[in-house]
């Protein structure tokens, strides 16, 4: 009797139960509502296009060709940072798989002891001491984990995000540990770009009104310039303000979430335990610190075709794994949210398209026993013999 082994690259993001959308083979991860993000793109690209089309020829000739060159570089940097912020995984924490959730529940029950009937059990909180400060870790009922310090649950994306800052509709994604620096650089570079375009628009209008040389004697239409000035003017206030606010947060090593909640406002002698008490060091950590990995990487595994039901029905705790193998579209994590993207392709051949940064070494093979956390969600030729 022989069993057929199927090698398949299972992508973690296929089973993510949150409200995210994925593109480009999992390389792009965004929130579901992207309308405002398209508006951001339109405003930036639109305004810059008008600037390059109508102002730059004039300014390049009459002032310096370096002006459009620098504007182009700045524009490219802004777009790179925007796309990086929008498309990166902000630091989403994978939800607890059933075994882990049960393990944590048992720990909680053991810690709470006997709760008299009719009384509400105490809130699920764990206290940890960080730098002589007691930090409370809250339990997330959706993700079934105790959130790490500074993590928070985003209700829009329905994920717990590490070092959660805020959910930004303008970039169409959460801002968290992994993409905060890109977000900050985006706001900073956008401020610079806005100021730059605004300034040169004014210069352009002034030069048209009061021609300084015989070459620019004609007063041409400056309709588009006025439009750009308007967009830049309104953008300036918000973006420059936001950049200033985030510069302040970075210097104190705080997140927007903590600032809004007043976690480290100083009352009750509570201080920020994450701050290095040194502005330079705080800035360096946030902006030049290590680039944290995404929890959603490709995992390659081998699954024996006929053996799966034998091995898995042996243990009661793996009944759900059997169900998973029978119904390949069922999510591994029994949750109220069924992922829209959970459509594992039932290809017998491994799909090989890893991105260089997201592939684990192929040697990390897991044992043929298909336990659910090793992503045993492929359609397997059912072997009726046990």
């Amino acid at each position, binding site marked *: *009797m*022989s*069993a*057929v*082994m*199927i*090698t398949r690259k299972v992508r*973690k993001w296929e089973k993510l139960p949150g409200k995210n959308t994925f593109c480009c083979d999992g390389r792009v991860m965004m929130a579901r509502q992207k309308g405002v993000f398209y508006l951001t793109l339109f405003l930036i690209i639109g305004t810059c296009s008008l600037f390059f089309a109508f102002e730059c020829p004039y300014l390049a000739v009459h002032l310096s060709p370096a002006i459009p060159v620098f504007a182009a570089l700045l524009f*490219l*940097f802004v777009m*790179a*940072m925007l796309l990086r912020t929008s498309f990166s995984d902000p630091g989403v*924490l*994978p939800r607890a798989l059933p*075994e*882990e959730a049960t*393990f*944590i529940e048992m720990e909680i029950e053991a810690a709470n002891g006997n709760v008299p009937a009719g009384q509400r059990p105490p809130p699920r909180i764990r206290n*940890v*001491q*960080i*730098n002589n400060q007691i*930090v409370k*870790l809250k339990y997330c009922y959706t993700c079934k*984990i105790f959130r*790490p*310090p*500074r993590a928070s649950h985003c209700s829009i994306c329905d994920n717990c995000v*590490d*070092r959660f800052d805020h959910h930004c509709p303008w970039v169409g994604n959460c801002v968290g540990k992994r993409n905060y620096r890109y977000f900050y650089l985006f706001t900073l570079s956008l401020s610079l770009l806005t100021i730059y375009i605004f300034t040169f628009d004014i210069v352009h209008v002034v030069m048209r009104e009061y021609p300084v040389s015989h070459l620019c004697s004609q007063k041409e239409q400056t309709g588009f310039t006025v439009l750009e000035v308007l967009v830049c003017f309104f953008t300036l206030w918000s973006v420059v303000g936001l950049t200033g606010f985030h510069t302040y947060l970075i210097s104190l090593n705080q997140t927007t979430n903590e600032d809004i909640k007043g976690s480290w406002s100083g009352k009750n002698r509570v201080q920020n335990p994450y701050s290095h008490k040194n502005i330079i060091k705080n800035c*360096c950590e946030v*902006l*030049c*610190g*290590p*680039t944290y*990995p995404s*929890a959603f*990487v490709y*995992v390659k595994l081998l699954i*024996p075709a006929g*053996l799966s039901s034998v*091995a*898995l029905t*042996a*243990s009661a*705790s*793996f009944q759900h794994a059997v169900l998973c193998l029978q119904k390949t579209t069922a999510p591994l994590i029994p949750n109220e949210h069924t992922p829209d993207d959970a459509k594992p392709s039932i290809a*017998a051949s491994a799909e090989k398209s890893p991105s*260089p*940064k997201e592939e*684990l070494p192929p*040697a*990390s093979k*897991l*044992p*043929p*026993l298909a*336990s659910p*956390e090793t992503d045993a969600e492929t359609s397997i030729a059912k072997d009726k013999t046990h």
Partner: protein
Amino acid sequence: MAETHSLQDLQQPAVSSKVFVQRDYSSGTICRFQTKFPSELESRLDKQQFEETIQTLNNLYAEAEKLGGKSYLEGCLACLTAYTIFLCMETHYEKVLKKIARYIKDQNEKIYAPRGLLLTDPIERGLRVVEVTIFEDRSIGSGR
């Protein structure tokens, strides 16, 4: 890519339970796991062996997250190239993660699998826990 194997080669023990080694946040948000020896593993593994594994993992993660001249240089250089350099270059953290994956595989092969245990790479759980799978002990001295 389908291969055929005989069923005997694939006979594997069933999973009896799992133990989850939690994060140690006493030093802040850096990645560190508790070295406390879980009671469920007492019958299978030496306390010292387990502590050594976890301590080595902690050291490796500390190396990955170290804030120093090298990481700042990498950060600044990447920023100047608008982070496009990461499209062709591996980050320091990723290099260490590969090292960690190799270490865990090595530990599994040498120490844990012969005792009917399996360590799961914490990155698969978002660096939240070290999952130790305990397999049923069907035959004495069984190993891979």
